[in-house]
C-alpha cells in the first residue's frame, strides 16, 4: 500500500500530463477513432483528487498508456498522409518518366475507413488527373469509371485501378476495384486481382503511364491509335476495333501499359485550347515560341484544321482556279499563293503522340465539341463524354452566325435555301449555289454582307446571276462609315453589279411558286432563289454556365480582364472575348487581326507574360478595286467624325496604289480583263475620278469620343497604320485634326 501510494505520488504528475496529452491528442484522434473517445473524458477526473487505491492507479496507468498510444497512432497517420500525398504528387509530376513509384503507401489496414475522407480530399483536389482516377484509393467507391475515363493514372499503382472506361469491352487496366481492399494496393496486388480481367494482367505494370491509352467509344476517332505518324484527325479510324482487341500490345507508348485500348487522345493537356480558329492558332504559336517543348492541344468541332476566314468572303471568290473550292488557295497581296490553312497537316502532331513527342507540339482534335467545363477540377468534357484535364486553358470558341427570326420561322423550304456564312463548308455551299441559281439575295449591309455582295456581283458579270443586297441602314457599312462615305460606298457596290436595296426591313419570308419571297416592311417584295443572311455573330458562350464564367450583357461574350483572363487558369481570346481595353474601354471585337493579336496575347499570358491588351488591332476591307480601307480602334458611325481628304488625282485608287507599291490587292487580272465590258460589274471608270465635289478618293477619317481620337480609317491610304496606332495610343486631344492628318502624307503613295 504504502509503496503504491508513493508510486502513485510519483506517477500522478506523469499521469496528469499524459492525460492532458491525451486530451489534446484525442482531438486529433477524434476523427480517426471515435472508439477511443469515451476514454478521454475519464482523463479529466484524474486531475482531481488523487484517487485512492491501487485500482485507480492501475486504471490511470492504463488510460495514460492508451492515450499515449492513441496519440502516437494519430501522429503516425497524419504524417503518413502527408507522405502519401507527397508521393502521389511526385508521381504525378514524374508521370512522363513513367517511373514506377514505390510501393504505395501501406498503412495499417485498419485505416481504411479513416483514410477515405482525408485522402480523397488532398489528392483529388490536386491531382491534375481527373478525380475519378484518384478515387481509386477509395476503391470502395465503386468503379465509377464513368463511361469515359480518360485515364491517365497518375502513375500510382492505385491509379491503375483507376478506371478506364469500363464501358469498353476492352479490359482496361483493371480496375482492381471489384475486389481488393483498396487503400493498400500495391501494383502487384492489383495485377493479381486483375487477373480476372482478360489480358489485363499481362498489360498491367506497376507504373501505368498509358497516357496514350484512351478509350473512346466513338467511331469518329480522329486518329488511328497506332502510330500513324503525323496523320491527323480526319480519318475515321476504327477505334472500336482497336478497343476490342484488348490484348493489343499497345505499342504506342514505350514502356507502358500497352494500351489495350486505342489511344484516341490525351487525357491531359498542359495547354488546352478550345476552338480551332484564328485566335486559337495564334495562341498555340505564341505558347510554342515562349515555352519550349510545350504540348498544346486544340479541340475544334469543325472537321478542318485551323484556317483564316477573310479569304472566304474575298480572295477565294476572285480566284481564277476552278478547283479553288477544293484547294482553298488564294493569291496574296504579294502575288504569292497560299492556302487558307495556317499550316499544312504535317505541322501538327497527332493527338495521341502529343504527350510523348520529344519537343512537344501542337495537336488538333477535330470534330469534337467541348460541352462541359469543370474549373475546379481543371478539366473539360467532350460531347462523347471523354474528359481531358488541363493546366491552362484558352477559350476561343468564336461564335455562330445570327439568323433573322422571320427566316427561322419561315419553314423548311426557306431555311434550306438560306445560308449563314461563316465556315469553309458555307463557302463551298454558296459557291455551288451561285452556279446553280439565278438569284441570290444578301441580307445585311456590314462587312460580310457587303464583301459577299461584291464578290457575287463580280461573278455575276460572267453569268446571268442576279445579286441583290438589302439592309436597314441607309448605305453599305452604314454602322461603320459616316453617311457621306457610306453613300459613296453604296454607289460603288452598285457598280459592282449588285442591286442594293437600302432601308429595307424584312417583315416576312415565304416560299411561293418555287421562289423565296421576301416581304419588306414598306411593302416591297423581292423574289429570289437563295438567301445569304449576314446579320451578325452570336458569340458562343455555352461553356459559361458549367465553367462559372461571366458573360457580358452589353457586348456579349465572356467577360475577361485586360490580360484576357477570365479565371485563374482560363483565358479567352478572339470573337468570344469581351475584354477591357485600357485605352478604349471594354469592348468585343470581331475582326481577324484582333483574333491574331488577342490569341497571341493570350498565349503569352498563358506562359507567364501578364501583359494587358495594348497593341491595337486593325481591320480592313476592300469593296472592289476602287474602295479599300484600313481601320483601327472604335469605328462607329454614331460618333462625330472629321474626315480629311486629298483632292484627288488619277493615281488614287487601291489598284493604282497597289501596283505602285507592289502590294497587289487581289487578282487584278479580273479587273483588267473586264474593264471594257459593258457590264457594270467590272471596274467603273478607270482613274479619272468623278468631280472633285464628291470625290472621296483618299483620306483619313478620325472618330472622336469626347474630343479624343478613338478610331481612324485610312481611306485608300495604305501602309500608314503605325501612325494611326500611335495616335490612338496617345489618346490626346488634338485641337486641329488637319494637323494630325498631315502625319499621314495622304497625298503620297
Amino acid at each position, binding site marked *: 500500500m504504502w509503496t503504491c501510494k508513493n508510486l502513485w505520488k510519483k506517477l500522478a504528475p506523469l499521469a496528469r500530463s499524459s492525460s492532458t496529452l491525451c486530451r489534446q491528442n484525442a482531438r486529433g484522434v477524434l476523427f480517426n477513432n471515435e472508439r477511443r473517445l469515451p476514454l478521454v473524458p475519464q482523463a479529466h477526473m484524474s486531475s482531481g483528487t488523487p484517487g485512492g487505491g491501487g485500482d485507480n492507479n492501475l486504471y490511470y496507468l492504463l488510460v495514460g498508456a492508451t492515450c499515449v498510444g492513441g496519440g502516437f497512432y494519430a501522429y503516425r497517420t497524419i504524417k503518413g498522409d502527408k507522405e502519401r500525398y507527397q508521393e502521389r504528387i511526385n508521381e504525378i509530376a514524374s508521370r512522363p518518366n513513367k517511373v514506377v513509384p514505390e510501393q504505395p503507401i501501406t498503412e495499417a489496414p485498419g485505416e481504411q475507413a479513416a483514410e477515405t475522407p482525408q485522402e480523397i480530399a488532398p489528392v483529388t483536389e490536386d491531382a491534375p488527373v481527373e478525380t475519378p482516377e484518384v478515387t481509386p484509393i477509395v476503391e470502395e467507391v465503386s468503379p465509377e469509371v464513368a463511361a469515359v475515363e480518360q485515364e491517365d493514372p497518375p502513375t500510382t499503382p492505385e491509379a491503375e485501378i483507376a478506371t478506364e472506361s469500363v464501358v469498353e469491352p476492352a479490359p482496361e487496366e483493371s480496375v482492381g476495384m471489384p475486389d481488393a481492399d483498396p487503400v493498400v494496393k500495391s501494383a502487384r496486388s492489383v495485377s493479381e486481382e486483375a487477373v480476372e480481367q482478360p489480358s489485363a494482367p499481362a498489360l498491367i505494370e506497376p507504373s501505368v503511364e498509358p497516357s496514350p491509352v484512351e478509350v473512346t467509344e466513338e467511331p469518329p476517332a480522329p486518329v488511328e491509335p497506332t502510330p500513324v505518324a503525323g496523320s491527323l484527325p480526319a480519318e475515321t479510324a476504327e477505334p472500336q476495333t482497336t478497343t476490342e482487341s484488348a490484348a493489343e500490345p499497345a505499342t504506342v507508348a514505350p514502356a507502358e501499359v500497352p494500351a489495350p485500348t486505342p489511344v484516341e487522345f490525351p487525357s491531359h493537356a498542359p495547354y488546352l485550347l478550345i476552338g480551332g480558329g484564328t485566335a486559337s*492558332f*495564334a495562341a498555340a*504559336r505564341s505558347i*510554342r*515560341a*515562349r515555352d*519550349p*517543348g510545350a504540348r498544346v492541344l486544340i479541340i475544334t468541332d469543325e472537321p478542318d484544321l485551323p484556317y*483564316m*476566314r*477573310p479569304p472566304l468572303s*474575298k*480572295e477565294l471568290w476572285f480566284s481564277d482556279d476552278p478547283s479553288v473550292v477544293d484547294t482553298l488557295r488564294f493569291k*496574296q*497581296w*504579294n502575288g*504569292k499563293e497560299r492556302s487558307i490553312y*495556317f*499550316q*499544312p497537316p504535317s*505541322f501538327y*502532331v497527332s493527338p495521341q503522340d502529343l504527350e510523348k513527342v520529344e519537343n512537344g507540339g501542337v495537336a488538333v482534335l477535330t470534330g469534337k465539341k467541348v460541352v462541359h467545363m469543370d474549373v475546379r477540377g481543371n478539366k473539360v468534357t467532350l460531347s462523347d463524354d471523354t474528359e481531358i484535364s488541363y493546366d491552362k486553358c484558352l477559350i476561343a470558341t468564336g461564335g455562330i452566325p445570327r439568323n433573322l427570326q422571320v427566316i427561322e420561322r419561315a419553314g423548311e423550304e426557306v431555311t434550306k435555301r438560306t445560308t449563314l456564312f461563316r465556315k469553309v463548308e458555307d463557302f463551298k455551299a454558296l459557291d455551288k449555289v451561285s452556279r446553280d441559281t439565278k438569284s441570290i439575295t444578301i441580307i445585311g449591309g456590314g*462587312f*460580310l454582307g457587303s464583301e459577299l455582295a461584291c464578290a457575287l456581283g463580280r461573278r455575276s458579270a460572267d453569268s446571268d446571276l442576279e445579286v441583290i443586297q438589302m439592309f436597314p441602314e441607309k448605305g453599305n457599312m452604314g454602322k461603320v462609315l*459616316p*453617311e457621306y462615305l457610306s453613300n459613296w460606298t453604296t454607289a460603288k457596290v452598285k457598280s459592282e453589279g449588285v442591286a442594293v436595296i437600302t432601308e429595307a426591313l424584312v417583315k416576312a419570308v415565304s416560299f411561293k411558286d418555287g421562289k423565296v419571297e421576301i416581304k419588306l416592311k414598306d411593302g416591297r417584295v423581292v423574289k429570289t432563289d437563295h438567301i445569304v443572311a449576314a446579320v*451578325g455573330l452570336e458569340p458562343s458562350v455555352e461553356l459559361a454556365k458549367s465553367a462559372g464564367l461571366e458573360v457580358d450583357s452589353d457586348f456579349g461574350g465572356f467577360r475577361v480582364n485586360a490580360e484576357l483572363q477570365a479565371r485563374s487558369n482560363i483565358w479567352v481570346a478572339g470573337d468570344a472575348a469581351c475584354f477591357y481595353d485600357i485605352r478604349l474601354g471594354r469592348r468585343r471585337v470581331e475582326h481577324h*487581326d484582333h483574333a*491574331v493579336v488577342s490569341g*497571341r496575347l493570350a498565349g503569352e499570358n498563358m506562359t507567364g507574360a501578364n501583359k494587358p491588351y*495594348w*497593341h491595337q488591332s486593325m*481591320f*480592313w476591307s*476592300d469593296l472592289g478595286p476602287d474602295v*479599300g480601307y484600313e481601320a483601327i480602334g472604335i469605328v462607329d458611325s454614331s460618333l462625330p*467624325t*472629321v*474626315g*480629311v481628304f*486629298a*483632292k484627288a488625282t488619277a493615281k488614287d485608287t487601291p489598284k493604282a496604289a*497597289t501596283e505602285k507599291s507592289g*502590294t497587289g*490587292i*487581289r487578282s487584278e487580272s479580273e479587273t483588267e480583263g473586264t474593264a471594257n465590258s459593258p457590264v457594270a460589274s467590272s471596274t467603273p471608270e478607270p482613274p479619272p475620278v468623278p468631280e*472633285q465635289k464628291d470625290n472621296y478618293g483618299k483620306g483619313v477619317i478620325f472618330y472622336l469620343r469626347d474630343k479624343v481620337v478613338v478610331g481612324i480609317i485610312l481611306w485608300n491610304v*495604305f*501602309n*500608314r*497604320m503605325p501612325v494611326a496606332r500611335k495616335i490612338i495610343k*496617345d489618346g*490626346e486631344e*488634338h485641337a*486641329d485634326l488637319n*494637323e494630325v*492628318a*498631315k*502625319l499621314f502624307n495622304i*497625298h503620297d503613295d
Partner: protein
Amino acid sequence: MSSVKEEGKDRVIFVTKEEHEAPSNAELVEEDPDDPYEERGLILPNGEINWNCPCLGGMASGPCGASFKEAFSCFHYSKEEVKGSECLEQFRGMQECMQRYPELYPQEDDKETQGGPSEKDPSKHDSAPEPTPTPPVQDSSPSTAPADTPPPSNSSASG
C-alpha cells in the same frame, strides 16, 4: 485651298498637296523604349531574342522550332569574326529537321518573304528560308513587322 464641309456631326475637309507639305504641328507623346506593354521586335530590349516576334512566322514554334532556336541563338550570341561560324552544327541540325518537313519548309524559293522580316536575320535568310505558309501572322498583325505586311488585302477582317 482646302474646303470644309459639315454634314451633320461629320466634318469633311479637302486639302491640297501643298497644304499638307508644311510640317505638322500635332504633338505626339514621346515613346518609352522600355514600355513593357509594347510589342517588341525581333530583339528584346535586354538583348534576347523575341521568339514570339511575328516576323519569325512559325519558325520557332513548328516541329523544327527547337533546332531553329538553337541555331539562331548560337548565331545571335556568336562573337566570332565571322558571325555564326561556330554554329555550323546547329544549322546543319536545323536544316536536317527542315528537310523532314518539306511541306512546311519549302527549300527552293522563299529567300525573301515579305521584305522586312528576313532582312533582320541574315543567317536565317541563308539557311532557313522563310516558308510561305507562315505568313498568316504577318498577314494580319502588323505589330512589329513593317507595316506593309498587313495589307489591305490579305486577310481582311470581315465581320
